[in-house]
């Protein structure tokens, strides 16, 4: 293989009656061995777990804390993000209007711009983001949105259960026909 015959055709000049014992080279062709070595190296590189799993910290609020000790969120600084099925994202600023006029639809790509916009236009002390995944959203969605908090360095955010009103709007926007929530304070959106 790697050895090439360079002895010039093998016409050895031999004198009459000269008998030479054939000298065998002691060199072994190592090429296949090198091939094997690198094959095994590639195998081990690919099977090695290169990336150690990382861990993301989440600190839960103590829900036994007295209401008067909890810090109230200012309405102007609040941004509520709702997660629905099929990676749908919805949000509204401040409080949800009864007819759902400020209920907006977005997705995971565009929500970052919205968060950045909110962060730039509100006072840092007032900014609070409320995350409300509904029952159809996946674990991955929740992690993604928590990650978004880390990416945009949001100091105050909370993971909260969705309210029936919000769930109603969310499902309605997703094209379902949900029954109106028990506390029927919702004015249906006129089309």
């Amino acid at each position, binding site marked *: 293989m790697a050895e090439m015959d360079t002895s010039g055709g093998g016409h050895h000049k031999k004198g009459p009656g000269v008998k030479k014992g054939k000298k065998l080279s002691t060199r072994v062709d190592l090429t296949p061995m090198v091939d094997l*070595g*690198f094959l095994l*190296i590639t195998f081990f590189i690919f099977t090695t777990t290169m990336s150690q*799993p990382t861990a993301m*910290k989440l600190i*839960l609020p103590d829900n036994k804390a007295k209401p008067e000790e909890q810090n109230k969120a200012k309405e102007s600084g609040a941004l509520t993000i709702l997660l629905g099925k099929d990676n749908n994202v919805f949000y509204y600023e401040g409080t949800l209007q009864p007819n759902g006029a400020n209920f907006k639809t977005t997705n995971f790509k565009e929500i970052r711009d919205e968060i950045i916009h909110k962060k730039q236009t509100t006072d840092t002390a007032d900014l609070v983001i409320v995350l409300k995944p509904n029952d159809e959203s996946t*674990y991955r969605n929740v*992690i993604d949105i*928590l990650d978004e908090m*880390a990416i945009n360095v949001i100091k105050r955010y909370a993971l909260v259960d969705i309210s029936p009103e919000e769930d109603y709007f969310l499902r309605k926007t997703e094209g379902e026909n949900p029954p109106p929530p028990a506390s029927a304070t919702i004015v249906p959106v006129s089309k």
Partner: protein
Amino acid sequence: MARPKIPRKSTSVDMTAMCDVAFLLLSFFILTTKFKPSEAVPVTTPNSVAAKVAPETNVVMISLNKDGKIFLSTGDSKGDKDKKAEIIKSVNSHKNLGLSDAEISALVRAPFIGTPLAQLKQQARIPVDQMTGESLPGIYVKDSTNNELIDWMRGVADAYSGMKPNLLLKGDNVAKYPAFRNVIDAFRKNEFFKFQMVTNPESVPMGTDLFRLGRREE
């Protein structure tokens, strides 16, 4: 004019050195490789920008698989296994399960706990290599009132009295949020307010606040 004779040189290269290097690298990789342990509960974790490596000692891990089944496991070290025994003993005495010592040690050897409390005796009888997330029903967690994970977390609190366990939650991408909420409920009921979620590393997107923060620190 006679051309000067150029001696023909052999084109063969000495492979010995290359061979040496190859096998040196090979032995390095063999020795440093830690094979992925075959997981009894397969979970595909989501990505996040979190850069901290997950801890490996004093670990209490809750796995949430794609069907929303919940499993409890601890680290593999001796200390963690001892804690697991304490957790099981604590749950056993609080809930009057009547597990024998042999059953408890069988459960400690098991890779995870994944049955409702009433079926723990049956799980103890299953051989370790046949225990998979597919075949077992998972810890019984339906809603905030029927949540056996609360009992397990109380066991964890007892076993780690005074110490802080590293609570890890390893959830699957497609697991639904209610299962996640039930786990959080169980943590909160036992006053575990800090926990970590296992994720795969991901690079920070360019131009974001965290990206700028990271640049400044460098």
